[in-house]
């Protein structure tokens, strides 16, 4: 319900309305696609769709983490007047990003089916959904850590915006992972988005299941992180209202 109002508010009075939600990543896609598929990756026939998968997943992560971080402070006027569980606010902020992502996904699949005639099997789609939920998961972990911190450090959003830009180029979005020199690859894996984007591409476009051991390690790191972030949020949010 909160998310619904958010949505209503954000796009009210603009006649393009909800179209804005997916216009943003697609403009970026058109530009990047134009530049890179003509200049550098002429011999990769699936470059465009690979770029699109990367961009859609990336903008989901970027939006969800940013919205999650600012969510508590943005709802300060409500939190000061009424008791509400803090996690509810943080999670509801991500619903908006998920909705935008859902629309983007539809377009992605239309491209995949009707332009590239690639039909991933059910297993591969399920694998892809697992990767997507892990992306959602890491943006939640990030939000749980930063939502209370942001109340104390109000320039965190600018720092994060900057870091997002760095991470954008440190993730295999505009370039394929294989284009990276072998000695840098393990470094790239420190970025959680690398693995998830790369595995998603393998599932959707190459119809394969990427290395399960990597995924397993990823999940083994992810779960403790999630637990710690929830603990951290509970601990720090107790007195957060007073300093809003």
């Amino acid at each position, binding site marked *: *319900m*909160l998310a619904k*109002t958010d949505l*209503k*508010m954000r796009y*009210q009075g603009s006649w393009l309305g909800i179209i804005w939600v997916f216009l943003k990543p697609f403009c970026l896609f058109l530009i990047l696609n134009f530049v890179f598929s003509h200049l550098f990756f002429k011999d990769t026939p699936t470059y465009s769709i690979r770029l699109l998968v990367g961009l859609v997943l990336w903008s989901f992560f970027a939006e969800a983490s940013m919205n999650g971080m600012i969510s508590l402070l943005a709802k300060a*006027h*409500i*939190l*000061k*007047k*009424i*008791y*509400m569980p803090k996690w509810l606010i943080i999670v509801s902020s991500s619903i908006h990003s998920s909705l935008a992502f859902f629309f983007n996904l539809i377009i992605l699949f239309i491209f995949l089916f009707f332009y590239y005639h690639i039909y991933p099997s059910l297993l591969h789609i399920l694998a892809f959904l697992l990767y997507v939920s892990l992306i959602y998961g890491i943006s939640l972990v990030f939000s749980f850590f930063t939502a209370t911190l942001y109340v*104390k*450090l*109000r*320039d*965190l959003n600018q*720092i994060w915006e900057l870091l997002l830009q760095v991470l954008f180029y440190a993730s295999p979005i505009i370039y394929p992972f294989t284009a990276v020199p072998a000695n840098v690859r393990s470094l790239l894996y420190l970025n959680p988005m690398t693995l998830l984007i790369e595995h998603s591409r393998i599932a959707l476009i190459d119809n394969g299941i990427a290395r399960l051991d990597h995924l397993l390690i990823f999940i083994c790191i992810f779960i403790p992180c999630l637990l710690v972030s929830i603990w951290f949020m509970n601990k720090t949010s*107790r*007195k957060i*209202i*007073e300093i809003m």
Partner: protein
Amino acid sequence: MNDQIAIGAYKLSKTFKIPHEHNDTFKERLVSLGKSMTYETFIALDEVSFEIAKGEFFGIIGRNGSGKSTLLKILAGIYTADKGTIILNGSIAPFLELGVGFNPELSGKDNIYLNGTILGLSSKEIDKKYKSILEFSELERFIHMKLKNLSSGMQVRLAFATSINADREILLLDEVLAVGDLGFQKKCFDVFHNFIKNGKTIVFVSHNIDAVRKYSNRVLYLETGRILHLGDPITVCNQYLTQY
């Protein structure tokens, strides 16, 4: 513990630390690294103890800054007390102000649903109560107008009508009737009367001493975070008035 008690507060203390300089950003933190932070401590509540019986209309009076709102916020769960315990018997309405989350850009109807959701009602419950809310607020003609085009009195009427439908056993009211017209105020007190008859409890903070004296069963008089008097409304209110 007595079953007849709705709220028990025992030795509640709350101290606010107000820093002399606000280091709200990461940058400022870095700059002032090494400097010790200086605080002003403000004791908002100092070992306040009282019990409120079920079905009681409990008035709280006191000057500005005497700790009334802090006390209510602790009861509502918005702030946490530094020391002391609270016992709550029955569901508490976790808000002190009416119309929490009201959005001026949305219609009256949307705001009823929004506010109702924040107060913990499901949309089905609101559907059921919508008619009685509308009748009580007497705003049938204006309900599809944007909230910002309604007068402040009308907004309060709408908020009040929604809030009393939240169905809680303990209500906290912080200076809520200041803007309603006389007819509406009378109507509100009729509602309160009904609440009390049904065994619900009302905690009422107001500067309207006449109303407090007329309707309360007992009155608590706070002064700089301590209880100055607690007891019969006529005596306590007169004591408060003799100060001026």
